[in-house]
């Protein structure tokens, strides 16, 4: 009797709000020979594949591209229009299974490499993160925080870019994000906002992540600042690898400097082009880098002199921002 899963490990989940450029981090980690980066699978937004397929068909973005590309690559060995079709059919035949079972299947295919998963949708609802933890009790969680002003500028910049082709519908995911309602003291969403104010999604999503992480053992979670990843990538990546108890051999760290080598870092086949945040337009930011990292002063996206809400400042200060 040979135990069937003795070597497989639970995945590493990167928790970050959308547009935190977490793909570059995910792809960099995936270049370490002991890890394998998945594109955005959005698996834990649903319990079953049937539910996931429904969500995907109703989504305002190409929610299925990441998972289809991952299945094509790991099950059928390459990403072509034909294997994407096969992947879609593979998934449809498994519509009754749990989404976690699909991730387990991908983990088996990637074995002995450990999966790195980053789907921003998971941070919208604490239930999605709890589902991931329940299904993978030994999973680790890497939380990426970003300064609220920098985050807000990215969102409004992205809105400008994406509206160039015409106004975005209120149901578009970016509008939904930018106009996210505030949270009540009980953690419930208030009436949907109509005004663009990216400090609200910054606060709501980060607080949701913090609430979830409060339930996770210390050794299974860590956090980094997105800014540190930009300024000292080697230091941050080595810190993560050490925390994961993986090899810190220089060649392996060197490999992580090439996230572009990931099979998901380029455009996919015509029927599943995307799957990561790499393909979103890169907005030009209105502020220079020094002004991006201050909690004081007016917010550029407000016509008046409005500043950060008190709870936003308090949470940002917990992350070491000033």
């Amino acid at each position, binding site marked *: *009797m040979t*135990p069937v899963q*003795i070597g497989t490990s*639970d995945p590493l989940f990167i928790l970050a709000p959308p547009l935190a450029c977490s793909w570059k981090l995910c792809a960099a980690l995936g270049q370490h020979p002991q890890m394998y980066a998945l594109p955005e699978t959005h698996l834990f937004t649903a319990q079953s594949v049937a539910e996931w397929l429904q969500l995907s068909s109703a989504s305002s973005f190409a929610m299925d591209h990441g998972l289809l590309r991952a299945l094509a690559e790991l*099950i059928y*060995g390459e990403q072509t229009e034909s294997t994407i079709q096969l992947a879609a059919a593979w998934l449809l035949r498994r519509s009754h299974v749990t989404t976690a*079972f699909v991730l*387990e299947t991908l983990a088996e295919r990637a074995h002995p490499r450990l999966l790195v998963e980053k789907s921003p949708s998971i941070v919208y609802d604490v239930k999605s993160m709890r589902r991931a933890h329940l299904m993978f*009790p*030994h999973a680790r969680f890497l939380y990426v925080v970003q300064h609220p002003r920098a985050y807000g500028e990215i969102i409004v910049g992205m809105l400008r870019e994406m509206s160039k082709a015409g106004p975005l519908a209120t149901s578009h995911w970016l509008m939904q994000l930018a106009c996210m309602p505030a949270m009540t003291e009980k953690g419930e969403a208030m009436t949907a906002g109509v005004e663009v104010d990216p400090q609200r999604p910054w606060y709501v999503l980060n607080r949701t992540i913090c609430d979830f992480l409060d339930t996770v053992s210390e050794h299974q979670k860590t956090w980094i600042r997105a800014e540190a990843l930009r300024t000292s990538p080697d230091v941050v990546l080595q810190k993560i690898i050490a925390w994961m108890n993986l090899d810190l051999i220089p060649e392996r760290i060197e490999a992580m400097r090439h996230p572009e080598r990931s099979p998901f870092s380029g455009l996919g086949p015509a029927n599943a082009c995307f799957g990561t945040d790499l393909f979103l337009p890169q907005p030009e930011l209105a502020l220079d880098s020094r002004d991006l990292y201050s909690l004081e002063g007016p917010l550029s996206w407000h016509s008046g002199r409005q500043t950060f809400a008190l709870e936003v400042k308090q949470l940002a200060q917990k992350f070491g921002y000033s």
Partner: protein
Amino acid sequence: MSSHPQSSSQTAVHAELTTNLQVLHRAPPNLLILLAPPRSFTTILSAMLGQHPQMYGLPEVHLLVARTMEEWWGLCSEATFNMDHGLLRVVAQLIFGEQTEYTVKQAVGWLRRRTHCSTAELLEMLSHQVHPRILVDKSPSVVYRPEFLRHIFAVFPQARFIHLLRHPRGHGESVMKYLHARRQMGPVPTSHWLLQLAGYPSMSLVESDVIKPSSELDPQRAWYVLNMNICDFLRSVPTHQQLQIRGEDVLRNPDQELVRIAGWLGLRADNGAISEMKHPERSPYASYGPPGAYFGNDRNFLRDPVLHSEAARPTTLEGPLSWRHDRAGFLPQVRQLAEQFGYA
């Protein structure tokens, strides 16, 4: 015939097809199911059989009381005992290689990820994992409902069944003794399985949480109804797939009875195999499990998993019942059924 190089996608399709065909052509699950009311020597016999080199004894996995794993998890969350411990220990052992706190947590995730599976599919996976050994299951909870029994036979038509018997007096005394021990630990809710068993079938779940006086508890009713459930069910099972044995006979004359069981199953009945079966304490489930899955078997067995022949001391169908204040004896139908089973 010219050969064409296959693309990697064709290779992958072929690999999937081959795997699926292999699964389809796998031998059907090889199961031996012990049927008996709770407190009928099922734990010790299951552990003994499981030590036979061609068998594998499970602890109490309670899989077949639910149709789906989702339903099973729901039942576990409502159970008055640690219903999930047995299965968690098995998955930790068979899928992750050992029973530790770490692998028990892995087992939780593995099972949660299979919420979509039927419980029979899970049992089939475990059966394949121990193949070619026969998987021995003994979950006394299945004998409460005839539909559970019928479902087992529907999903495993080639399964073999042992109807394990115990004298109604020994059974009743064991239930009352176990209940007494449980009461020492604190109040026993009416929904507790022991009280349900001792008060069966008159005690209703909707009654108050006050424990009835022991004079109202009469485990002979459960003994009768549950054994009748088994007898009724076994009428629909081919005779070569069923065997009736008295637990007391196994404990008193293990060599003779174990040879009989092995012979019926078509397994080795040599001294080596029989000798192994007399060491239930060697089962991986014969001691307390790790944190997160301590139990999974009868607690008395976990404390002292050795074969004790004195547990099967001679007893009689005559005379008053120790648990009844009115000193009444067995009901006529209980006596009649016990006599059919060869008890006096």
